[in-house]
């Protein structure tokens, strides 16, 4: 295997990983604060991709407007589902919320297919040629995707670590009981959480729609790799989620060079298993005993 192919696979892995880092961060934040693995994350992405397509079809206009529209739509649906479903289950076990989120996932996907059918769509973008640096190919679109993801990630990390709202979020993730005993109202934080989680899934989905063909299973099929990335990074660690999913995506793309695309998922999960054998808490997680 020549090093140029490997370099291209790594670049591709970075792009996909950065894009998936958005929903992966949403998974981590929801897991840490609302305390369940949200199985609807993938379908919120799908919703974002379809909203982008629909907005281009019916409203015309620029891709930027379409992507912002997708973020707004998924944020709104995410908030709706919080008020309608997850808020009522807040005091129940996390398993009940997980099951409910699987239900939400199916509901979102069925609603999409009801309107859009099973057809495939592509986001309408002018074709651009890749820059070629002696065999190493870089697509300008990929740069935009990585740029958009980076800006969104930086914004949320600034909020998390530099603002009172972010401090409250981290306090609730640390200990809900102590947070309440410090006078922090969880409900206000939850509204912010679900809006951000929704918008991130929407952005991730829209960017994925630019890179791939849009079909109803788009996000659902990514759910397991995304969970794997989050676990690899260390559950509950936002930085870990980003680095975990990027590592996982690179591993997947490089693996596909050696075993073919059909088995790349298997190989990536093997890597995940090996890492977890050495470091059960993931790359950036804290050992449970220390808490």
């Amino acid at each position, binding site marked *: 295997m020549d090093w140029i192919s490997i370099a291209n696979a790594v670049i591709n892995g970075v792009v996909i990983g950065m894009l998936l880092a958005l929903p992966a961060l949403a998974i981590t934040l929801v897991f840490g604060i609302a305390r369940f693995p949200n199985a609807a994350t993938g379908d919120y992405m799908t919703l974002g991709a379809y909203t982008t397509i629909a907005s281009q079809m019916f409203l015309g206009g620029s891709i930027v407007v379409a992507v912002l529209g997708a973020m707004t739509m998924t944020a709104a649906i995410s908030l709706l589902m919080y008020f309608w479903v997850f808020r009522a289950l807040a005091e129940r076990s996390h398993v009940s919320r997980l099951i409910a989120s699987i239900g939400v996932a199916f509901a979102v996907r069925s609603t999409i297919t009801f309107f859009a059918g099973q057809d495939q769509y592509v986001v309408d973008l002018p074709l651009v040629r890749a820059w070629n640096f002696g065999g190493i190919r870089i697509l300008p679109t990929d740069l935009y995707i990585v740029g958009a993801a980076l800006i969104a990630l930086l914004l949320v990390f600034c909020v998390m670590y530099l603002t*009172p709202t972010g401090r409250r979020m981290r306090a609730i993730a640390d200990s809900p009981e102590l947070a309440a005993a410090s006078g922090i109202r969880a409900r206000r934080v939850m509204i912010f959480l679900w809006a951000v989680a929704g918008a991130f899934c929407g952005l991730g989905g829209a960017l994925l729609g630019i890179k791939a063909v849009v079909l109803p299973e788009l996000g659902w099929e990514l759910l397991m790799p995304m969970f794997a990335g989050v676990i690899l990074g260390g559950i509950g660690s936002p930085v870990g989620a980003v680095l975990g999913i990027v590592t996982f995506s690179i591993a997947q793309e490089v693996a596909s060079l050696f075993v073919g695309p059909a088995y790349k998922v298997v190989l990536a999960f093997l890597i995940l298993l090996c890492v977890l054998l050495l470091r059960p808490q993931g790359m950036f997680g804290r050992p449970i005993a220390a808490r």
Partner: protein
Amino acid sequence: MSLLQIAKLSGGYGDVDIITGIDMHVGAKEIVTIAGTNGAGKSTLIKAAMGILPRIAGTMVFDGIDLMKLQIEDRVRIGISYVPQVRNVFGTLTVLENLQVVEHAPGKSARIRDMFDLFPALAGRRGTYAENLSGGERQQLAFARALMSSPRLILLDEPSAALSPALTDQVFEEVKRLPQADVAVLMVEQRARQALAFSDRGYILDAGRIVLSDTGASLLANEEMGDVYIGRGQSQAAMPHAPSTHV
């Protein structure tokens, strides 16, 4: 009138009552200690007063306000603070953030300066994540966090747990100072003999019921009860400390 008045209080985590028929009160600027064997329901009683216990019945009045209808956050607002037995600081937040995050603290930055004056050891560690503090520093931060909202009543669940005898003395010195700042204390203590010595009053809890209540001095003098519930001997600090059993 008492600051906190509890009558016929019972409650628990599931269907079973862990505490039953509790009658107790705490006056303004009073230090009141709850003692009892492991599993007697001491932590449960403190949680009921803070509003954390899932199921309660009875009456609880704080400063003329009916507590039974109030959420935890609102109890903080009206002047009640709580230092849990375990996980009493936000480990993933810095020392400074642990104080900043507290709501209902008007004049927050001035209040934080007061806390650093009160606990100078914390001032030098304001950027340290709380999980990296030593046991003593951690306990100081737990106190400072609870005092941020300028409470009139502070609920302390075993403030000396897992501390060395020297650090225990230091923590007790801090507790003794609280009434001067117009803060009343309702405290659970394993080192009951030592705690009752500076408490105005005490309650002995057994299997979820109050079996005895008296002034701190009288409880210490009561020999038969003392042997069973408070522990024999002159000073518990001199004896090897039996760590509390839960994690």
